């Protein structure tokens, strides 16, 4: 019995290892290619780079729009998250603590939005941004990101709030605390795990986003990382070395944050799943 179990354990482990190798291969491949020159890549796809060839990173940094695009992506991510955290849980709180026909209506209204795919309203949205004078500014995508997260965010936070007993708030009210105060000083800190999940999931989505920044930010100025990579592929699709360097740079910040905040990623996905 024990032998059988140990044997099947080993099989499981080996299968897992083989799968891990397969899963890691594309990443391994792009990492080693980032340190090769174009000729080397075309010559030997699989081998380890001969030397630590840093030219790709140098040219990427110095002669393309990449650094600026990275900055833009970072700004979009950080600002969107800050504003989302500032505005959305607040709305969820008001809805969760005031059950009446108006708030229920608003709640359903918000939820409908989750069903609408971006493609449906991207064209008129595009026109709209121009008439608002927002085309060309980073504030355009920020606003779109926030508006688009309202549905999911409200859903997430209202169900989380249901699990927070109201006694604390009632006690604070007796003490004379205003609603606003209660929210920021008591509730908001309690929302921590939920907020962390939203930050992590939305942050990743904004960082990796492609279609919207491509359409909404003007093409002659640096856009975001993903758009720049796409443009490089189009214009210089034979300069694989540069593009691999770029993709590596784009993955690193995400990896670092992931390694530190792993559990919030997991929690966020689980939370989104159970509410979905």
């Amino acid at each position, binding site marked *: 019995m024990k032998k059988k179990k140990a044997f099947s*354990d080993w099989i499981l482990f080996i299968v897992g290892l083989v799968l891990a190798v397969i899963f890691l291969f594309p990443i391994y491949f792009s990492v080693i290619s980032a340190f090769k020159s174009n000729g080397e890549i075309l010559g030997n796809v699989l081998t380890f780079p001969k030397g630590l060839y840093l030219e790709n990173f140098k040219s990427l940094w110095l002669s393309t729009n990449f650094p600026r695009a990275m900055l833009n992506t970072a700004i979009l991510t950080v600002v969107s998250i800050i504003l989302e955290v500032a505005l959305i849980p607040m709305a969820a709180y008001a809805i969760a603590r005031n059950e009446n026909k108006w708030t229920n209506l*608003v709640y359903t209204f918000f939820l409908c939005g989750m069903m609408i795919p971006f493609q449906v309203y991207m064209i008129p949205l595009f026109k709209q941004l121009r008439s608002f004078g927002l085309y060309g500014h980073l504030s355009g995508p920020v606003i779109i990101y926030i508006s688009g997260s309202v549905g999911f965010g409200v859903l997430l936070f209202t169900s989380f709030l249901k699990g927070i007993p109201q006694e604390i708030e009632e006690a604070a009210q007796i003490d004379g605390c205003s609603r606003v105060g209660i929210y920021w000083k008591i509730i908001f800190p309690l929302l921590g795990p939920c907020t962390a999940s939203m930050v992590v999931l939305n942050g990743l989505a904004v960082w*990796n986003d492609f279609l919207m920044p491509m359409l909404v930010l003007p093409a002659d100025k640096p856009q975001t990382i993903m758009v720049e990579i796409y443009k490089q592929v189009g214009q210089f699709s034979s300069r694989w070395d540069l593009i691999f360097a770029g993709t590596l740079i784009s993955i690193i910040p995400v990896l670092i944050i992931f390694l530190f905040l792993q559990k919030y990623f997991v929690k966020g996905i689980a939370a989104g799943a159970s509410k979905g």
Partner: protein
Amino acid sequence: METEIVTKQTEATVVKHGKKKWWNSYGFYFILPSFLLYTIFVIYPTISSLYLSLTSWNGLSSDIHFIGLENFKEIFSSDRVHNALKNTLLLTIVLVILENCVALGLAIIVDQVKIFRKFLRVTFYLPVLISGIVMGFIWKIIYNYNFGAFNQILDKVGLSHLKMDWLGNPHLALFAIIVASVWKNAGYYMVIYLAALQGVPQELHEAAVIDGANAWQQFRKITFPLLSGAVTVCVILSTVSSLKIFDQIAIMTDGGPGFSTETLTYMVYKVAFSEGRQGFGTALSLVLFVLILIVSIIQIRVLRKREVQL
């Protein structure tokens, strides 16, 4: 105590006697910013798209011609739309099945394995962090006929006759994209399945072992039924996201070769932004939206029913 009641009553008054004071209540201001942003930048453009879909606007000229339901007529009779629909359904069905099976398999491995569990979990999840653009590019190179990793490996192990133009062969391209997408997304669903698996009480398994059940029987009769909630969620999520796949197609094939990887979602983008038919594109996007709605509703009904039964 009294103050509590009084405070509560004042609030109730505020809410009940609506018109008098609702705009003064905190709730209003808490909701207002989100409400405004959402309405102006999501709902309003969606409604505009209903109007735009009835025009022949090409995105270039300043006048917009109203053409009624012409766009929709064209959509229903267009070969290209039918092809896109076929591709969309094929892609979605195969991708959903593969993603979920692989994700479940990975989850089981991670759950059951004794060592390196964390390493495996991270490894399988890593591709999720990578954007569709980056992933599309990496795989495009891997699939390249002349210099790509796949074919080079086949050469090295002496299987050169198996070399194919993975992305250039119209019969293979869609599946090539599917394989790459499974790699990218399986980790995400694995996390959900893993959480569900870890919720299965160990005692059940132990009791089954005592009763002489083998691993497969255990899985069928104990584990799988208890996973039905997770299955519902994952299938729905993966279906909707598969219907909306865009980035990978944009980088890997641009809908080609020919039209063999053009899905509805991709066609909307092409037609509206690449081919300058924004009125038609909007109409197509509405059709896509309806499709997503119908599919989601059906799925929710079917899967929830199954859940309840089990």
